[in-house]
């Protein structure tokens, strides 16, 4: 299925998996990256997701409109017009007030006049977006809430995702799709796949405490899986091997924008998001770093294992402060960064395949080579030094 070839496997079609990790700031970066992969003709054999990473991955796989590129480009419209966001720094379009009338008001809002925006409108849709987002703000403001101290979440779900994803198509789609959720009864992660993933399980997997209540699917109660495995690696793990042999040759992990997030918060909202993201990003980094060291170790021993690669999202210092913003301009910036980063990855991959020399590609993108030499990761991995003795 995939068109990219990998190192010593170049004589045959390479099998590729991608990990799209959790964390709302990653949403637009991942959407841009997946769009670049799609446009480059890359079709992943399996996709492992956690938390908010599931949305762009679903748009890549089974968009409602049947056009992955257009759907992924349109994710930027989730964000709020900059002028409105400068006054009300909240994404009221996806974080809907808690209350029994939320769904009704959300549907009412959808029925009000608004502009339909296409991907081509992205650079020059300011007034139309302002109009749409003003209507959305008005509806959000008018939506009554029943939030009080005894409530167990601040938000309520509405059918936002149903407008974007073609759920029935997922069950027959050739790409193996996985999304993790945490089972509060068994106290373990559960992985939803093509057969079991539907709106309820999607919501369950994104039920971050405080934001959303634990969600029941088939009599089991779940919360956000990304708080336990934000990398998505565990979600794909059982599909990575068959009869002891790897099912994919390479795993592509999208950046978790970690180094850009650890900063002095600029305001209380940013501090809140950092408080939530800080350990999640760290958990993802440790998991991927340990796996990358293991697969590199196995490669030296001649044992077949999926190699893991890393697509970096180079956030400029001046943009780092805005990563957590839900403003439209930020969405566009992040989307472009993700898109360019993945495109460059594809170009380098092609060059490696054509030349038959993967050295540069390996140096630029092999996870253990580019990520594991940072002090934080070095100290963590030093625990396992004795295990990696030849």
């Amino acid at each position, binding site marked *: 299925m995939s068109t990219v070839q990998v190192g010593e496997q170049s004589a045959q079609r390479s099998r590729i998996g991608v990990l799209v990790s959790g964390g709302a700031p990653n949403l637009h970066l991942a959407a841009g990256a997946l769009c670049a992969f799609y446009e480059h003709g890359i079709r992943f054999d399996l996709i492992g997701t956690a938390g908010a990473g599931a949305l762009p991955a679903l748009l890549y796989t089974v968009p409602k409109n049947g056009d992955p590129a257009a759907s992924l480009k349109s994710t930027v419209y989730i964000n709020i017009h900059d002028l409105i966001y400068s006054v009300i720094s909240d994404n009221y379009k996806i974080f809907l007030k808690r209350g029994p009338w939320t769904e009704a008001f959300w549907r009412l809002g959808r029925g009000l006049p608004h502009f339909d925006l296409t991907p081509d409108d992205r650079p020059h849709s300011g007034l139309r977006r302002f109009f749409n987002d003003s209507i959305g703000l008005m509806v959000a403001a008018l939506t009554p809430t029943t939030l009080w101290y005894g409530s167990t979440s601040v938000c309520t779900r509405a059918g936002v995702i149903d407008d974007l994803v073609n759920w029935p198509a997922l069950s027959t789609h050739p790409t193996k799709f996985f999304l993790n959720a945490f089972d509060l009864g068994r106290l373990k992660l559960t992985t939803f796949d093509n057969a079991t993933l539907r709106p309820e399980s999607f919501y369950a997997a994104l039920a971050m405490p405080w934001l959303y209540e634990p969600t029941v699917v088939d009599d089991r109660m779940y919360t956000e899986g990304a708080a336990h495995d934000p990398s998505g690696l565990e979600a794909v793990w059982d599909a990575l091997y068959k009869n002891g042999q790897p099912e994919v040759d390479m795993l592509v992990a999208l950046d978790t924008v970690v180094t850009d997030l650890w900063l002095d*918060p600029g305001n209380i909202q940013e501090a809140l998001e950092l408080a939530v993201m800080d350990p999640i990003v760290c958990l993802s980094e*440790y998991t991927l770093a340990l796996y990358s060291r293991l697969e590199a170790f196995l490669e030296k021993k001649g044992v077949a294992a999926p190699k893991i690669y890393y697509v970096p999202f180079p956030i400029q210092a001046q943009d780092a402060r805005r990563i957590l913003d839900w403003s439209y301009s930020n969405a566009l910036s992040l989307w472009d960064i993700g898109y360019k980063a993945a495109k460059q990855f594809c170009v380098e991959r092609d060059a490696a395949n054509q030349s038959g020399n993967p050295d540069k590609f390996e140096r630029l993108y092999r996870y253990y080579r580019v990520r594991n030499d940072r002090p934080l990761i070095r100290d963590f991995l030093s625990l396992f030094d004795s295990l990696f003795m030849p």
Partner: protein
Amino acid sequence: MTPNLPRIGIVLSGWAPAMTLMSGVMLGFLKEGIPIDVVSTSGIGGLIGLLYLAPKGKTPTEALQELPNLFVSDLLHRFVPFNFKVFYKNSPFAQLAYELREHLPKIPVDPGSSSPVARFINDGMELAATALTPPSLESYRNALLSQTSMLEERVDFDALRDPNFSRRFYLNAFDISDQAQRIFGNRSGGNQHVAADAFRAAQAMFLLFPPERARGRLFTTGATHDPTGLQAIWLKERKLDMVIALDPLGPAIWRHPVNIHDAFQLMLLNPIVSLQVLTLALYANTEQSVNPPVGTNGPLKLPRLYRIPFDFPPCQIPPAYYPQMLEWTHANAVTLESVGYCAARQFVAGLLRADAEFERVYRYAGRLEDRSQQFLRVFHAHLFEPASRFASTEREKYGPGRSSGEETSR
């Protein structure tokens, strides 16, 4: 004091409202006369470790026993469910408010006594003082709270750093200037020396407190990067025989919330506890994999990891109690202290027996949670399965050895 005890380290880390679970454990060790050679801490565990090692003007037992008085009157907590006695609103006047509040007339109360009326009056005055502390709109910029010298004043940092002080202490913080975890200790020199500024840095969790500047660098808490405190053990203290960790109590955090305040705390704690549980599991499996089996005499490559559980009667926290563990009530403080105290004494009884039953009940690797086992399967086949990295040749070299208690003697 018992001869032939192993060289023991303990890692202390936990949620602030459950801090007395840790202090109870340390009180149990003090009662039993078990010396702890190394205390490695993370977040609020730093306070417990410091009070255990170097309290100012008090004995360790007195200092630790006082902690329930930091908690809020049960009656008042029903109406104001947060700890306004420890957490000061973000204000440039926070330190001044703390100093003024120290001069408020208080009714003396025994830390272990419920004294509902006296506590209500004392804490009511504290609440009024909190309400009257002027906030600064500007200071709401990046955190809800301000740190004061309240906790660090209870610690004698000079005594801790005295070259003759024989025991080692570690506290972690995350340096956001260069994205690295730093470990402050009482033995290391230069920038890593533990002091009041390092303690504040280690408490600076995003949202609650602004990042703290120490030694010219900017820090947040290390608990979100190593919530176990184990990193100091594997980086600096590999010669210990054993390291003890308290049960991370994942099920107490991975549950349905009971109200919006509880939900908020669960949101913050879910990934931290997950990181804690998985790090402990990785360490446990690693040490079991690289160390000789108990009963053989080979050298340890990592200190063996043991767990103080809180699910064995009578030292048990029942699941129905879990939501209350995050409450700042005095009753909760006393309850958790007694559970910790009881569990530590039970652990010591097993430690002194040093038999197979002790290994079965307390060795961390032997009782991994379902979630840990699920996570480890990713690495198990190739990383841990060749568990006998303490190769058979080494076993032959060192022989079958003696009992576990004897082999780890000082």
